[in-house]
């Protein structure tokens, strides 16, 4: 186990190097001038050249990559072309907001998903199963960003129950964990939870059905042991996989929040990414993607290690 953990951790290093190459390359496959966002329509070619040198775009790709990597390793993701602020600062602030939203959505999605999945699996082929399975497949098939817009129209504009956008009345800098602020999380978190809910429900349903079909469980039942024992057995065996699925889902939510954050003007990494794309702010784009991919890799690593530790069936 320990050897596996070391091996698994070491393995993430080349992956991370590859990830950083991809992030760096992203900027350079982009057509057009990387300085377009700050170049005014009538900038002279002389001004363009001057800015190009100031931003280091006149050097070779290899040189730029290693300069960039060296700075990244020191925690410096460069400067946003559009805002002049440090990308590290921008991303770290945004990551906090996205993390909060993703965590709430994950808990919500996991709870509902487990509930639906368990009910569906336990009462396999009953009308209850049909209903829960339908909810699950709905979750993975609906364009969720569009669902978000509908929720806003119904619950913010129509009923006025929840705010439609932003992270609190005073912005995320003044965030507090109280009722007033929690209201701002409701609609984006529900929208975001729809997909993990569907996935967790489908996974759990399959797991539960599988476990119940095991000869061992059939044996338990035949021996007349109570429903409770069977239930415990199912939970114990389904938990590691379900938790692993949830961990991975959280990683996906972190990276995939862009559409939801745009719909709800949530000041997280998704908004940052959207702005970076449309302002052609390439250092910001690069930095945000790198940080999100790193989070994802680390989260996957943790999930993997945790699952190995928890699940007696996995021998590595």
């Amino acid at each position: 186990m320990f050897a596996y953990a070391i091996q698994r951790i070491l393995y993430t290093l080349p992956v991370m190097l590859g990830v950083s190459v991809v992030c760096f390359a992203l900027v350079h496959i982009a057509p057009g001038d990387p300085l377009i966002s700050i170049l005014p329509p009538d900038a002279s070619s002389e001004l363009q050249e001057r800015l190009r040198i100031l931003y280091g775009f006149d050097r070779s790709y290899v040189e730029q990559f290693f300069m960039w990597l060296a700075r990244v390793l020191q925690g410096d993701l460069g400067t946003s072309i559009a805002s002049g602020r440090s990308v590290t600062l921008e991303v770290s602030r945004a990551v906090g907001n996205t993390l909060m939203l993703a965590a709430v959505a994950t808990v919500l999605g996991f709870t509902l998903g487990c509930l639906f999945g368990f009910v569906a699996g336990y009462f396999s082929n009953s009308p209850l199963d049909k209903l829960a399975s339908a909810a699950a497949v709905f979750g993975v098939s609906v364009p969720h960003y569009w669902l978000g817009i509908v929720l806003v129209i119904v619950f913010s504009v129509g009923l006025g129950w929840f705010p439609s956008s932003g992270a609190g009345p005073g912005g995320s800098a003044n965030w507090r964990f109280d009722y007033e602020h929690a209201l701002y999380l409701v609609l984006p978190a529900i929208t975001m939870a729809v997909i993990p809910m569907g996935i967790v429900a489908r996974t759990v349903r399959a797991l539960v059905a599988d476990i119940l079909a095991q000869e061992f469980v059939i044996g338990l039942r035949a021996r007349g042991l109570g429903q409770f024992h069977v239930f415990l057995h199912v939970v114990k065996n389904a938990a590691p996989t379900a938790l692993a699925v949830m961990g991975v889902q959280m990683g996906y939510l972190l990276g995939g929040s862009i559409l939801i954050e745009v719909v709800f003007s949530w000041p997280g990494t998704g908004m940052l990414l959207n702005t970076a794309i449309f302002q052609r702010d390439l250092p910001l784009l690069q930095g945000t993607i790198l940080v999100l991919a790193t989070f994802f890799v680390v989260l996957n690593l943790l999930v993997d290690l945790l699952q190995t530790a928890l699940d007696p069936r996995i021998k590595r």
Partner: protein
Amino acid sequence: MSYARYSRQRVSMAILAGTTAFVAPAAAVAEESVLRIGMTAGDIPLTHGQPDQGFEGNRFTGIPIYDALTQWDLSQEDEPSTLMPGLATSWEIDPEDDTRWIFELREGVTYHDGSEFTAEDVVWNVEKVLDEDAEHFDASQVGVTASRMPTLRSAEVIDDYTVALYTSEPDSFLPINLTNLFMASPDHWAEKYDETGDSDEAWSEFAADPSGSGPFRVTGFTARERLELQPNDAYWDDARTPTIDRVVMRPMPDANSRTAALLSGEVDWIEAPAPDAMAQMEGQGFVIYSNPQPHVWPWQFSFLDDSPWLDREVRHAANLCVDREELSVLLNGHMGIPQGTVGPDHPWWGDPDFEIRYDPDTARELMEEVGYSSDDPVEVRVQTSASGSGQMQPLVMNEYLQDALAECYFDVELDVIEWNTLFTNWREGADASSANDAHAINVTFATMDPFFAMVRFLSSDAHPPVSNNWGYFTDDEFDDLIAQARTTFDPDERDEALGQLHKRKVEEAPFLWVAHDAGPRAMSPSVGNVVQPQSWFIDIATMTME
């Protein structure tokens, strides 16, 4: 810089004292008036004095927080907004040197940090973008600034309240350009510099805690989310000293989110509401303000050899074939109907002999003269985008044009590309491969400044990649008219020269003039004293809040 620090401390002490003295006992907190604005920008425009995000930046983080030497009169709705004194009280060209301007400065103006505005500060603020050797030179401000004052080179103190500005060539447009050079407080910057020891970081700190001399001071800044302003009670112009206690600005690039935020009462004012959501807004009591802006929504024609627009008859026919009244219906009426780059009540109008109107019969006659007919239409290809700042509703409008022009023997093909790419292509010219064989390009522009409104499209010096003469329009007569206007320093005579240029421009019709943006914005009825001038800007300082 110890003085600056001292004085700032004193000021903040004073503010603190004032706050406790007046606000606390009166319990006026509950009565506080707050104006919350949803902007279209994806980020708060830069707050260090030279905003990005186009003119929306000047509107929200330039004019309210800072002053420039010259400024736009935003108090009139009925006539074009004109230039008026700002931090400069008067200006004139040096009679002996037509590249040297002399500006008399306003006395007794203080920045938000308490330091005083003098001629040295003008020099300092010119250096921040034009003198690479200056400690406070900031490359990131150069892009948005230098281009808006292309001929400005340097500044020089004459005395405490007189300053000289030098241009690279005689340029009568300079006073107009200077509305874009906002005066940031050098003392406040120096304080940031003392703290950080690095010029870039000092600017970054300055942006988070700015100090200008405008009617509002910044009291809260969360990057990409929220900017909070409070009145500068020491503002030099009593008429523009704000009565609203707090202004909050939020970037909301998605039109749908803006609409929802307004309708659910999270903001009091949104920029550019979607036309289709306006009925809902008005139904709930919100007020839509709009007024034609100095803005043109055009097709800019190519004058290359393969272009179908080489015949003036064809250019005139296109201009006569669009029923702009009907087009306006698509935009809920929030569109100005153009008669040229500027309208008849504008000083640069010049009374052209060609009238832009809807007259399809004449248009067809003109087309027939050149030899086109319904069986043999002229094929034109237009490059446009699906969105973009100032582009209004580009697809709806272009598809309408496609339809309308078909009546006059035009077979229009649209080449829809991404906004940033279109904008880049604009600088590369009609002969570049990026133009994709288009004969016209649809990029909208502001027309407050003669250089931006006309010169860069007409001058043979402005061919790509230098500037935006995308279609390579070349005519000695126009070059002469431009030189004439640039070297005429009496404002009225200059406007007359620009009138000549505009007259000839409309007559030669190197554009299809389609619309002026009306800059619609939706506001809650509790926002009072809203004056929507014929400008890209609006004065928040004079508004009231119930």
